[in-house]
């Protein structure tokens, strides 16, 4: 256990009898892009909610860098180095892009209770640098709620990055984007991985996206891990074609 970067063992979660997560076990190696695929309702978002502590599992354990984080609060989990973006855009719509990132930076730096220094004087350079990195430099003073959908998705990634995570969870980062926008954000994610030296765990519906970026892929169906493997293995797996690609057509 101690040697794996991130590991889940036998995770269970039911909602009123519905097994959203059913004995899920998986592991992620440091530095890789690990993806999770599965049809709607497979339990991908639920898995992310469990990892980030927003909901507690009925059974099972979550290990991160050798530590058992199953019982940690969402705030503690952020500070151990796991941050996430949300499938449905989840920002501060009436704050500017800058202020959105600033809130996350203040949280990461544990400055939330500081009362005497002006917030705007904290981390200016690194906030601007991060905004630049997610490609929103021109929009720094735009209200988050007035950004295009694609840019809100970028901001979503930016807010997660502000926590300086070593494991970055991305819940459908390209959902609802045009194909050019998708290409752009994939490049951004790849670049960020190198620059921030972080590991990425993402879930996606778009197979093109998954196959172009992943090192390892896990397939989830009705809350259960069906199979896992490299891009080639998953591409040629008959069962996956049946569950996933079959349904898509």
């Amino acid at each position: 256990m101690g040697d794996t970067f991130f590991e889940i063992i036998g995770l269970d979660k039911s909602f009123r009898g519905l097994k959203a997560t059913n004995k899920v076990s998986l592991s992620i190696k440091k530095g890789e892009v690990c993806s999770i695929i599965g049809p709607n309702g497979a339990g991908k978002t639920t898995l992310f909610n469990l990892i980030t502590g927003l909901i507690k599992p009925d059974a099972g354990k979550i290990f991160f860098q050798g530590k058992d984080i199953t019982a940690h609060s969402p705030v503690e989990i952020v500070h151990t180095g796991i941050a996430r973006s949300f499938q449905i855009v989840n920002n501060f719509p009436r704050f500017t892009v800058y202020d959105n990132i600033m809130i996350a930076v203040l949280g990461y730096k544990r400055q939330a209770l500081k009362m005497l220094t002006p917030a705007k004087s904290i981390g200016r350079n690194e906030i601007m640098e991060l905004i630049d990195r997610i490609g929103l430099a021109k929009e720094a003073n735009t209200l988050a709620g007035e950004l295009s959908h694609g840019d809100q998705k970028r901001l979503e990634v930016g807010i997660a990055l502000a926590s300086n995570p070593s494991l970055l969870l991305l819940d459908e980062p390209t959902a609802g984007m045009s194909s050019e926008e998708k290409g752009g954000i994939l490049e951004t994610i790849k670049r960020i991985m190198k620059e921030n030296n972080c590991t990425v765990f993402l879930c996606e519906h778009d197979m093109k996206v998954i196959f172009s970026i992943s090192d390892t892929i896990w397939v989830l169906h009705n809350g259960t891990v069906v199979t896992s493997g490299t891009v080639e293995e998953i591409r040629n797996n008959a069962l996956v074609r049946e569950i996933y690609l079959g349904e898509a057509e």
Partner: protein
Amino acid sequence: MDKIRNLQAGTREWTWYVAVFVILMIVPFFGSIFWTNLLTEILIMGLAAMSVNLLLGFGGSLPFGHAAFFASGAYATALLIKETNLPFLAVLIIAPAMAAVVGAVFGIIITRLYEFYYAIVSAASCMVLWTLIRKVPILGGDTGITGVEIPELLSSIDAVYIFTAIVVFTVLICTKILLNSPFGWIQQAIRENPNRVTCTGSNVLRHRYIAFIISSFICGIAGMLFVLHTQSTFPSYAHWIKSGDFVMICILGGVNTFIGPMVGAAALIILQTYITSLTQHWLLFLGISICLLVIFMPSGIMGLTGHLPKKIQSFFKKSGHNQRG
């Protein structure tokens, strides 16, 4: 979409504050006793409403029980002066601190709740305190505590007024600094989206709790000042209707602005005073005027100021453009 106004006070805003402060300082020398009294009351009610707005406009909660902290500050002041030999300065600090302690106790439950439940439980806890105050003999029962002796230095109406203005402005400046600090920004972020704040590593529950205590402390200062003003304190200070007044003042003045509660307090108290002198059915007219104000100015009196300068600005921009063209 409304832009969250940048709270960072520009030089122009500070100029305004200094100007208003200077004018307020001059009032007793030119105005009548009537106006001095009225202004004292406006400043105190404005301060109490501002403490409410810290949680309402800036925190997204609906505190319907702040009369509890107003009364705590008031009763603590009256009791400490009457029953102990503490120096007056110590009373000025301990009394609001007592309100903060009450806030810390009530806040344990209240700050775990949201929206409707938050409002109901805060109102209910306020009524618990109201009942207690009337039952405890040392607090004077239904008649309250009267004849509170304050130091000679503050015994004139003018002196109390000047003292109130200085304290209120000091607290205002501190609040402004607080709202611009990381604490204030996270507070506003919690209003916008508490879950996202949690997921970025700030403890929302602890934050709301601390904000609640700070708010009750400030409300306690208002209660303390009111005792200096009236030299007495009554159970009605703790009644939830008083809490409702504070909330109404905020809405009247504009919850999205820093200075709104002060403006709201001025509007309500002046309205109250004039309508009372005009008709017996003043409560009816007061109610109607407030309804009209809220319907036609949903973002309060201060909501007007946001639009006017913009219109004027764009007018000047346009005319400047024409000249060049």
